[in-house]
């Protein structure tokens, strides 16, 4: 049943946004009203589920980026079962693999988010995509970066693997490890920006 005129309300909006919606409606071959109603319906759903459409879209975008890097969604219990079995057999090789994977990811972040504050990008990635971390704090002052990641479900072996992965990321971003107080389920690491020797040599005294 169609809506009567009195069931319609007029809502003020910025004209430029409305114009862009009209362009999309032409491109998609959908009525403007259908696009607007879909946007309002879905945002009400998000408001009830998450709280902010902006935050949800930002998180979705990060998860989409991670998907592009070849990440897989896997039950944590299954992953941890496999890592713990292999950790006992070949700890060194496993730690090296995690470190190398972290380095690759760090380089990817640097390339993808060139010009952005990459430590802030990493913080957003960890808080959005590291689903095993329940609490995350990252401080970045004067070239020194501190991480505090709380992941109570991680075993000692998986905590060590995660910290190695983080160390690999930070190495690729140009930071060296200066402090590691990681214990089971709690990653406490400090990094310092490496001095760029080539550049320093060229700088005046």
């Amino acid at each position, binding site marked *: 049943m169609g809506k009567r005129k009195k069931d319609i309300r007029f809502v003020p909006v910025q004209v430029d946004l409305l114009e862009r919606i009209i362009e999309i409606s032409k491109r998609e071959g959908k009525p403007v009203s259908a696009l607007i109603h*879909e946007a*309002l319906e879905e*945002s*009400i759903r998000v408001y009830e589920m998450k709280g902010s459409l902006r935050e949800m879209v930002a998180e*979705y975008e990060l998860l989409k980026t991670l998907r592009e890097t070849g990440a897989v969604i896997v039950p*944590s*219990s*299954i992953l941890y079962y*496999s890592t713990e079995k292999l950790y006992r057999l070949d700890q060194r090789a*496993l730690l090296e693999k995690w470190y190398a994977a972290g380095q690759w990811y760090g380089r990817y972040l640097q390339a993808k988010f060139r010009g952005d504050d990459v430590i802030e990008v990493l913080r957003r990635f960890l808080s959005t995509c590291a689903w095993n971390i329940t609490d995350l704090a990252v401080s970045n002052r004067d070239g020194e970066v501190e991480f505090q990641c709380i992941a109570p479900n991680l075993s000692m072996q998986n905590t060590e693997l995660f910290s190695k992965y983080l160390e690999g990321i930070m190495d690729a971003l140009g930071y060296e490890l200066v402090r590691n107080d990681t214990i089971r389920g709690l990653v406490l690491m400090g990094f310092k920006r490496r001095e760029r020797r080539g550049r320093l040599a060229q700088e005046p005294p």
Partner: protein
Amino acid sequence: MRRGFLAAREDLVKKLSELVASRHQKLFGVVNEILEQALRVYGFGKSLSEVVDEYEALMVGRKAGYVLVAQGLLYPLVEGAYLRQGNKLEKAWYEHGVWLGSYLSARFGAEDLEKLEKVMNVLLWEASEFKLTKNGDKVTLRCIGSTIPPSYTSLLASFLEGVMNAYGLTAVRKDVSRGVVILDLARQEGEALEGGQA
């Protein structure tokens, strides 16, 4: 900034106004933000409803204890563990499938295979296709991912069998090869299937 007006259904505006007021925000600002985000999402080549559905499925995964890990780490790891303890791992994956299926059927309804298909399409994003096709009392599950190695495919097959068992469906025929899982499923005795195409 020029202002215009958009015509919207009263029930939606009323509902939105209530939510906005409860957060001490202004309707003008919130509606502008909604349009901005809808435009951003169109830039991904998707509609807002598709993105919200996918996000909801991802959050189901997060709440169900899933994590994201690089394929390059996971596949060799699983391969190594599978060579040593294949049967144990298959059992663990099957059991996890039963658990997830029970969780999803409790959350979305045991008859809602369409929702199950949507959620699995997101959680199994490494697969290029995940499809459930109903044919009377029977259901065919197809999961295809060209990059999935053989050991991971076997575990995935066990996992998917577990998920479908929780929905009251048992595999009567399995076709599992590298990157391909096809399960023909039939309703377990005493269970009735409603509806048509998933």
